[in-house]
């Protein structure tokens, strides 16, 4: 055990937590609006990584422009996924929607594996670093945090300040009532799925600027998103952001006291414990 590692580990973890939170935000938004757990979340995160990678390596597009492009692609992709796989079964049991989104997972992984193989890729960006004592903050990590904060803020602005955003929240609260008020709930559901997907792709795109990845890398972040979303309360966007920070911070700090490999055990135990003791999450789910 080395307390000297505490500060740098906590900072590293917390910064990653912002990006985790962004991914979890996408998952929780979809669940909150339509009670669907999106099992294609992981591959979509991976697609975000590859969107940036292709734009960067084949067309020389700045990775951060690539992040924007990934978000736009994500929006359209999400809407497409909604109409192809989710719309028809939106009122069916959770098993049905789980399997429907899982089938999308298989298709994305299947096709993308053929195109990209499972070879690891990485995007090399050097934005320098901030160093003080044994704390090193890499420029790429700093920018990722900033982008994550911006995106989350923009989402909140959208959900709470715009007419469309309010409609989405109305549909989330009570679909039948929203329809009586003249809201086209199907359009809102599709849009929500699109935004959720865009968030996942954005977080994937940011992760691609930090670490190397393969088309299968999304799985890890998908599981992490589950943990975060449950921690913050399924369907609660603020909970997802806070949960992301908590998990990031824990991942950083726990490594100081435990062998690093034990950290996931602790994470999953917390995950199950929260489900059992506080199924609404630490922050409580939105009614």
């Amino acid at each position, binding site marked *: 055990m080395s307390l000297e590692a505490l500060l740098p580990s906590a900072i590293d973890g917390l910064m990653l937590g912002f990006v985790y939170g962004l991914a979890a935000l996408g998952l929780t938004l979809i669940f909150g609006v339509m009670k669907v757990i999106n099992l294609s979340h992981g591959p979509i995160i991976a697609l975000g990584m590859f969107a940036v990678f292709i734009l960067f390596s084949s067309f020389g597009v700045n990775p951060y422009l690539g992040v924007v492009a990934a978000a736009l692609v994500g929006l359209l992709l999400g809407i497409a996924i909604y109409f192809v796989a989710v719309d028809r079964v939106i009122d069916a049991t959770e098993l049905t929607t789980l399997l429907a989104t899982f089938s999308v997972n298989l298709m994305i992984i*299947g096709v993308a594996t*053929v195109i990209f193989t499972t070879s690891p890729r990485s995007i090399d960006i050097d934005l320098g670093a901030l160093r003080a004592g044994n704390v090193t903050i890499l420029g790429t990590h700093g920018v990722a945090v900033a982008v994550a904060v911006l995106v989350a803020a923009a989402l909140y602005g959208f959900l709470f300040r715009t007419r469309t955003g309010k409609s989405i929240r109305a549909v989330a609260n009570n679909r039948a009532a929203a329809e009586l008020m003249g809201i086209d709930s199907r359009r809102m559901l599709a849009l929500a799925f699109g935004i959720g997907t865009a968030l996942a792709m954005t977080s994937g795109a940011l992760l691609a600027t930090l670490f190397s990845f393969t088309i299968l890398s999304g799985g890890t972040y998908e599981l992490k998103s589950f943990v975060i979303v449950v921690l913050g309360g399924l369907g609660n966007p603020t909970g997802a952001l806070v949960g992301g920070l908590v998990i990031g911070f824990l991942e950083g700090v726990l490594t100081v006291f435990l062998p690093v490999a034990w950290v996931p*055990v602790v994470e999953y135990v917390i995950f199950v414990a929260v489900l*059992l003791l506080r199924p609404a999450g630490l922050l409580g789910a939105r009614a």
Partner: protein
Amino acid sequence: MRDLRAPFLPALLVFIAAVAAIPIVSNNPSLREELFLVLMLVTLASSINIIMGYTGYVSFGHIVFFGIGGYIAFWLMQTFNVHFLLAAIASAIPAALIAALIGIPILRLRGAYFALATVGINEAMKSFMTNFEPFGGAIGMFFSFSIYLQYGGAREAAFLAYYTMAAIALATVATSYVIRRSKFGLSLMAIREDQDVAMLVGIDPARAKVMAYVISAFFPALAGATFFFKNGIIEPGPAFDLLRSIESLVMVVLGGIGTVAGPIVGAALYEWLRGFLITNPTFANFQLAIAGLLLLLTVLFVTAGLVGSLRNRFPRLRAYIQ
């Protein structure tokens, strides 16, 4: 009972046993390997069907019991040189106990929460095993080859594993059938449809659910013990493979959720399809994508699965196909 007009169960068991005997009679080891896998998947799918199809609880991380059974049995065989059959049973009992212990709290959760909790438990178990050195940690355990000597050699051990897996599959299917036709099964289906109503007519849902969960954990544990005995190697990844877990759900849905024959049909079909796609040069690369497409089509348009749709289309068949 009067409504057992069609000798469905004996017919089904004889059919499975007959198919299982083919590689033995024709002495075809590679068919034996394929069928070993199919029988294992039948066991997994039928077990999941008990908790998911009959009771309505989507146990996404059900593979955890397969892994637990495999690990405990493997450890017993390797460390204490316990006979395989004994080790298999000795591993299924703690697996069932664990199911009871975790079942009591998590079966209170409903819908997506339950599904997520089972995923969490599986992942927790996997990462725990990855660090648990007595069971070999991340590398897992590997048989000393001499272990197989007490069964007459590695080849004979493979046969023993095959017979055992066939027996487990038959037992699972028989259990699944008996449950479906029993009062206990009826209580499970009532819980699936409406837990509150079930409670109001006199069913103790907590008890019935835990029972179903324990039964559905028992057989996968046996299957895990057998599978890893034959493999001679166990690692956390293959033991707690979430993808395999989800694939078993897919098989249930493909064949027909809540029916006895559905999981069998689904497992055989899924495995056959995968075998076909993998060895077919045109489709090999798109294997996963095609599986996904098929699943989506099933989920969207053939909700009841193959067996379920048959039963719906031809009500007369209901007496003959369960």
